[in-house]
């Protein structure tokens, strides 16, 4: 097996390792194993979903003085806060639990300068089945940075582009 092949093979290994990580993530989150999910992130993880608005392409208006703002703009500590709340047993909206199912796809990886860091693109849809016949679907694109620590891939950064200008549900007790 020549070098190119072995290089390609390594890429296949990396790709699948990261797909495994993303699918495992989705399964952990669907199953509300939030702590296990958090353990799959780095200490310095940055988790963000920016606010946006429908603007004309040629819009001339000045940038917002204090930035566009976020829906999620979390550190590991803030994620832990959210999880603490979700696991407190007082989040009525999640009891009874909704049926939540994530479908992750379009996984692409791009190496970075740093050997053990990989940029990962993916798309996620989150289906929520609520009380009676109510169903909601979120769709978003994700640009991640994953870092290999002791042979294990951890999420170091996630920028989520939510594809809704109006949130289609009454809460966002879900991680993307």
């Amino acid at each position: 097996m020549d070098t190119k092949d072995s290089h390609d093979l390594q890429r296949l290994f990396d790709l699948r390792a990261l797909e495994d990580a993303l699918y495992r993530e989705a399964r952990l989150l669907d199953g509300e194993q939030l702590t296990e999910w958090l353990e799959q992130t780095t200490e310095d993880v940055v988790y963000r979903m920016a606010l946006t608005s429908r603007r004309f392409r040629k819009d001339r208006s000045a940038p917002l003085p204090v930035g566009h703002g976020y829906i999620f703009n979390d550190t590991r500590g803030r994620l832990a806060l959210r999880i603490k709340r979700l696991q407190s047993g007082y989040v009525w909206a999640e009891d009874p639990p909704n049926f939540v199912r994530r479908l992750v796809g379009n996984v692409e990886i791009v190496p970075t300068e740093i050997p053990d860091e990989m940029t990962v693109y993916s798309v996620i849809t989150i289906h929520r089945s609520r009380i009676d016949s109510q169903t909601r679907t979120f769709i978003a694109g994700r640009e991640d940075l994953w870092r290999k620590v002791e042979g294990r891939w951890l999420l170091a950064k996630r920028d989520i582009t939510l594809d809704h200008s109006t949130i289609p549900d009454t809460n966002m007790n879900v991680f993307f």
Partner: protein
Amino acid sequence: MDTATLFDFRTGRQSRRIYSADEIYQLELERIYGRCWLFLAHDSQIPTAGDYIRTFMGEDEVLVVRQKDRSVRAFLNTCTHRGNRLCRADRGNARAFTCNYHGWSFTADGELAGVPLEKEAYFNEIDRSKHGLVPVAQVQIYNGLIFGNFDADAPSLSDYLGDAKWYLDVWLDAMPGGTSLAGETQKIDFPTNWKFPVENVCGDGYHLGWAHHAAMQAVQTMDLAGLRAGNSDASGLDMGMSVAGLNGHMVLAALDGQSGYAFYPDPKPFVNYLEANRATVSERLGPVRAQKLWGSQLNITIFPNLQLLPGLNWFRVYHPKGPAKVEQWTWAMVENDMPEDIKSMILENQCLTFGPAGLFDNDDGDNLTACTEQSRGWRTAQMDLYTHMALGHSAPREGFPGDIATGLVSEHNQRYFYRRWQELTSAASWKDVASYNLNSLTEKG
């Protein structure tokens, strides 16, 4: 239809039909949203001539535009030619608005400036002055808040706000630099009757200790007298107050001068900011508001659908979309004199607590939706509910306008909210609507 039987201010009894019946909703669109002063935008959102925002008044889509002369005008966001949506962006800056359909263009002042083929097709016979954008009948500004009113006969914004201004100024006018709304608009498609979120914030300190238990546990870092009450061990006048009887406007107020920042990971920088500037505020607003209110947790509600919470620093308006739906818009808000680090702490915290993924909002969403759904059933809609907590326990309080109940936990404010709701829905015109500012300081002084 007559709404007199739907709410009884003396007992707090109300019919659940007001949350489900379409005929009642239509009446609200006509007599409340068609008649009251509705929040359009904050000065800070459209600073420059040509800046605009697309928003709603009731279910009507409107365009709010900063004029060259710095004034603000608002128009139905609909082309006067064939009625197309004129502007499809949420916000921006434009010299003129050109319709996608046939290219009519309107200047920022609403005038029909351009008509393609005016000569060839209209033979220059079109009187452009007759086809300008339909203006919102009245637009007035109070300390940076831009309001619109569809009713030309409505009282002035200042009279409409009445003594609520005394409380509003604690946020709007405390510091010389004024205030701003920060960040993009946070919009949620929310299946609830519009009155539920309003009553939830206007006076309902009662749900905090329960519905938000988890959130508070997660983020509260400072005591808050009124909320301690929510956890059952406070008493006395220091524990905050519920203020109403002000033309349908309401205030919830803690009185410790710092509890607004009780939900921040590290309140210290805020407390420093408050103490460093309290003297200035005292000069501007006098000692009572400077000591007791500035920095305290305040919930201010301007009837019918505007709410702002100094301290938690969010600002919100509800756009009705039918008897069982609103589009809820929220922003973070800051004082312009605040140092940058505090501003960004506010932004960070607001989206953690009261944004679309906010720890608190995510507690309320399902409750308010369910209150609405449960008002629909044939039998359930026949039920009465009682908004009677602390009924008869309000009184005037020296130095504060309004009819005041002690503490943040009561239904005092809600009763006045529904009283105003009924006064307006049962009145044929503004002439039949009473104006009242109970225990006005001016009267006394």
